[in-house]
């Protein structure tokens, strides 16, 4: 555990005499290593450590027998702060049509999350509609239809040959006519360097004024999380992130990278393959997980 590692560093250095800036440097190095092993982006980790150092080199801390523990606490607090400090939830208004778009790289969990959200909102008394905009992946529409059925949420499916723009417009009209109050659109996975696919999402967000454009990110994503989030944010504009597969043992450093670089809050997390596996994001819990 990181807190033990830091404590060992300080105990060892204290044994050699009075604690000083060198001890802090070494302790900070341990922390930086832990962050990198947790997949926090390299540059994000460097900036983060610089901030922690500023807060740690006070006389009070260095004289203290619990310097190591104190620094770990500063790190945890700083992490929690960087992850947004407080929980930020998806905000929707009753009695009108709210529209949510899910985007992200291939395989991160969008389709599953659409069904999970649909079920959660239905249970909270909303009238959700899932919209299948992935016309590329084999059996993608069937997958949304099957999970939608399990969630007891209607799924709006494309007509043969229909393009995402047309499907979405038709779904929007349908939703207005049928008293739907939450429309959740699932899109195909795409690479940020696929210009055509990025343009497709741009077009969708230009046609519909979504209440939420959510970037779905796999918790096990490595260093590239920053570039991916930055590209989606600068090109499309995202209002929030969803981090998935947090039931795994990935430390989830990508959360820190995404939040600190784009400033976009993580609003929801995926914690399992089943429909129940969706929870609100708690920054404090995440920082504990990242620091290990």
């Amino acid at each position, binding site marked *: 555990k990181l807190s033990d590692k830091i404590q060992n560093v300080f105990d060892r250095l204290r044994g050699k005499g009075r604690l000083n800036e060198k001890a802090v440097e070494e302790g900070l190095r341990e922390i930086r290593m832990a962050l990198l092993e947790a997949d926090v982006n390299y540059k994000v980790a460097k900036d983060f450590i610089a901030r922690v150092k500023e807060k740690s080199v006070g006389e009070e801390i260095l004289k203290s027998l619990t310097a190591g523990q104190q620094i770990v606490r500063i790190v945890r607090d700083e992490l929690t702060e960087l992850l947004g400090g407080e929980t930020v939830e998806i905000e929707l208004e009753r009695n009108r049509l709210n529209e949510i778009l899910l985007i992200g790289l291939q*395989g991160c969990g969008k389709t599953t999350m659409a069904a999970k959200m649909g079920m959660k909102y239905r249970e909270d008394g909303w009238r959700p509609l899932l919209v299948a905009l992935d016309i590329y992946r084999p059996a993608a529409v069937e997958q949304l239809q099957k999970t939608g059925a399990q969630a007891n949420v209607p799924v709006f499916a494309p007509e043969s040959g229909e393009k995402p723009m047309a499907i979405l417009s038709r779904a929007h009209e349908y939703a207005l006519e049928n008293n739907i109050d939450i429309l959740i659109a699932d899109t195909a996975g795409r690479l940020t360097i696929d210009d055509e696919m990025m343009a497709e999402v741009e077009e969708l967000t230009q046609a519909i004024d979504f209440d939420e454009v959510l970037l779905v990110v796999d918790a096990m994503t490595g260093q590239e999380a920053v570039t991916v989030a930055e590209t989606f944010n600068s090109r499309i504009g995202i209002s929030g992130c969803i981090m998935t597969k947090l039931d795994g043992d990935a430390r989830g450093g990508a959360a820190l990278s995404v939040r600190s670089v784009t400033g976009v809050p993580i609003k929801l997390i995926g914690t399992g393959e089943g429909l129940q596996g969706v929870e609100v994001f708690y920054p404090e819990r995440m920082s504990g997980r990242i620091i290990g």
Partner: protein
Amino acid sequence: TTLHKKIDGAFFDELLDILILGDMGVETSEKLIDQLKRTVKRDKIRDAEEIINLLKAGIQDILKSDIVYTAEIPDKRPYVIMLTGVNGSGKTTTAGKFARRYKDAGLKVMMIAADTFRAAAIEQLEIWAQRADVDIVKQKEGSDPSAVIFDGLQKAVARNYDVVIADTAGRLQNKSHLMKELEKIKRTSLKKVDEDQILSLLVLDATTGQNAVSQALIFNDAVKLDGIVLAKLDGTAKGGIVVTIKDRLGLPVLEAGVGEKIDDLIPFDTEAYVDGLFG
């Protein structure tokens, strides 16, 4: 690039940055840079380009395998390619690609839909079987994956199939009951074919960070892996974690997934890969 810089601490730090940003992790990256520094010092190398080539060679040394993997199917038939990995990594799509490759080579190919759990997983694989124009063995959603494997391999042996491609459900490595299920799938296969007739592959998403090491370790414990398929290498992520995995586990990357279409699977070229790390 760093080609015109003077050879100082900052130069080596910049090279370290490239490795870490490529997901090679701290330990492996530092080991490579320390080794590089020693060589540079010993041989008094001053040219930046030469140093970068040395670093590439160092990475190549780790990646290349003593066993030469060719995409050729060995003589003992049927040859079973078993695809395993965490959720969403690219297994089913990779299965389709393998099917097309061996069908094109004139072989008799079968797919086994052993993901009996996820919604529309069987439908998804069926579409790939149609696209590759190969046979598929499947059962109802919810059936025991080992039973489907057994059924498929039984048919494959009886009807002289050359290649069997078995797709399994995605599973996170910390779910011990799911890893037990995977062990059972492998054990069941060994009732019908010999160990040397099975190519057990871990399909790894190139965007994955350090968690890939834990995936490799635990999946290897469950099914004794022969290698890795590095999928989604057509994206911006470099998948450098495979260097760490090769260094620590000896597990080589055999194939690379470079797109979502049926031909987007290529035998792994370590040299091209290493060049791409610095491209």
